């Protein structure tokens, strides 16, 4: 768990630089609320030994914060933390027993219950506050072509986090560095991230190749929204991903497919959170695929 926090640090630094100190305030509140809720529930409802020492609540807090816009009111952060920890995790018995990624449960709850606050992103450098994906969706729905979108988006900005979005998901480069650190420390294996990103790239590449005017390029898909944060940090959550490596591949392919389907044909511009939650629900089924025996 400590390694995950280290891996998230560069992205937090970039976000703070882009969006300002508010980012730190949201992260601190989210972490504090998550830890406090877990401690209270463990102490007074479950009446078991304290579990906050395993840092999982801290990770949930940071990941939840990363999935929020930097303009969100702090009371919503606390509400999200409550849903994440109380409903997403402790209801099932705590660490290791929760079927859904707690941070995403909190995030999706906020997204559905408070859509306005959750999708008003502060503007960066005078550009519009919308995320690149929302921008693209708007343009394409309005009958525009992909080239109209591309004229408004700079790939360098995508890489370095200089665009609108939930504050933890914008800094692609910093997140990739963190993901590589996790791979190097053997906290995660390459299976799930590669399957997620590979499927997204392949699927969008096929569409893009067929009709480059109506579909966004694979690079755009990979660098926007929660693709990298989701692939390296959310989908790889131990408790909510399959046990075996081959199961991880199936899981990752499913996330990649659903994400692109939602992004292109769904009502929301971004589908990573939903895709991960949907595949989380299939994990028990995937775990029933027994390891291959000779």
């Amino acid at each position: 768990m400590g390694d995950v926090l280290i891996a998230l640090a560069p992205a937090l630094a970039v976000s703070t630089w882009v969006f300002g100190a508010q980012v730190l305030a949201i992260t601190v509140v989210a972490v504090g609320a998550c830890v406090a809720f877990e401690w209270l529930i463990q102490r007074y409802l479950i009446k078991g030994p304290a579990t906050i020492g395993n840092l999982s609540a801290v990770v949930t807090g940071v990941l939840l914060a990363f999935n929020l816009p930097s303009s969100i009111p702090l009371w919503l952060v606390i509400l999200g933390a409550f849903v994440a920890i109380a409903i997403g995790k402790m209801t099932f018995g705590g660490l290791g027993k929760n079927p859904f990624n707690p941070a995403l449960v909190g995030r999706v709850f906020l997204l559905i219950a408070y859509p306005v606050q959750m999708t008003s992103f502060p503007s960066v450098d005078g550009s519009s506050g919308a995320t690149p994906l929302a921008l693209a969706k708007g343009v394409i729905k309005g009958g525009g072509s992909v080239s109209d979108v591309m004229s408004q988006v700079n790939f360098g900005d995508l890489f370095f986090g200089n665009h609108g979005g939930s504050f933890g998901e914008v800094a692609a480069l910093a997140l990739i560095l963190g993901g590589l650190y996790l791979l190097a420390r053997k906290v995660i294996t390459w299976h799930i991230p590669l399957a997620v990103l590979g499927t997204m790239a392949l699927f969008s590449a096929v569409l893009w190749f067929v009709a480059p005017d109506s579909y966004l390029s694979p690079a755009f898909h990979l660098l926007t929204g929660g693709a990298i944060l989701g692939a390296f940090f959310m989908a790889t959550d131990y408790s909510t991903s399959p046990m075996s490596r081959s199961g991880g591949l199936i899981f990752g392919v499913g996330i990649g497919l659903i994400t692109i389907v939602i992004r292109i044909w769904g009502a929301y511009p971004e589908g990573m959170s939903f895709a991960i939650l949907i595949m989380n629900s299939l994990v028990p089924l995937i775990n029933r695929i027994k390891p291959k025996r000779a």
Partner: protein
Amino acid sequence: MKTFPRGGIHPPSNKLSSGEAILPLSLPASVVVPLSQHIGAPAVAEVAKGDRVVVGQLIGKAGGFVSASVHSPVSGTVTAVEPLANGSGIKTPSVVIAVEGDEWLPSIDRSPELVPECRLEGPEILSLIADAGIVGMGGATFPTQVKLSPPPGKKAEILIINGVECEPYLTSDHRVMLEHPSQVLVGVGLIARALGVEKIFIGIENNKPDAIELLRKVASEMVRVLPSIEIVPLKVRYPQGGEKQLITAITGRYVPSMGLPIDIGCVVQNVGTALAVYEAVQKRKPLIERVVTVTGKGLGQPSNFLARIGTPVSALIEAAGGLPSDAQKVIGGGPMMGRAMSNLDAPVTKGTSGILVLGASEAARCAETACIKCGKCVTVCPMALEPYLLSRLVQKQRWDEAEAGAIFDCIECGSCAFTCPARVPLLDWIRLGKTEVNKIIRSRLSC
């Protein structure tokens, strides 16, 4: 480089005593020789209190088909035949002999000369092996003559000699290969002749290049008297020396679930067993002593001893520098598959490949925390089992599901428990479940 296809771990090897030559240990004042040092029926005592015995004399006769004879490792007087505590504190029938001098049976050839030639036929070799009470020396202690007699309808094609020694700390097989290469190879040839096989492999983990090179050299020098033997270097990876893993690594064949190696035409023997077979057949010396690694980071002098069966473990530890002050656990065998001993007066037996003394920092088993479903146990399991699931099923006593999960295929290598970040004692539970499920299967077969 060859290796088994799935799972496995890399524990620190800690082979502290690999450079230490085998030292004969001085005779203890008395020995305790258990009558059951093997898998199968215990031997039946052939001596009574007050009898005089000499080295090599039969003191316990094999008590069934799957059983092994026991010979006196010392000369002296039998002072008791009674149940005595073994390393686990469980009482098993044993013969206690007070040592007087060192008088050997005259039929045993004690000269150091190599006897490479053998004119005996397979069945004669087998009966000499049975008479010598030889069992699998790697620790499994299955009577060797039984393993070398395939059941009707099955034919051995490949003989594999296990010189892997993948357990951390242990060096007894390594030293045997370095110090008695010709004897081991002659023994291998005898086993091959008893089985009637042509294809012979010796698997050695690649961290013992000296042993690989030496055996290759000796095998080429002795090519006139020996069948052709291929020395196969294997990747360093635990449990490379597991019987099923070794077979797959070398031949690519898989032992079927619940099956035996002989089902796919393979027989695996340990290098220590090969040496014992050489001594039994060519020197007529029964299994009365063995090489034991006594090791541990806190020990003054980690060593490889040639100890008589029945010597108290405490005497071996004393000879290796005595128990260090921070010693917390003494393990019979290696750190992965060995058993902690609660009784240091327990004797060395035919299956004691090592005595490992662990200090407080190494022995501590951390407190168990919640399983976070990381799946590491599934990844490292060399048998493609799901240890997290099996241990849960055992705790819930759901034996039918544990059986469906092939719990009986567990080789108890301990890779899952070693790798578990939540320190769940996975193997403890699975071992319990294996016993229960095997009981259920057996009762189903009997009715």
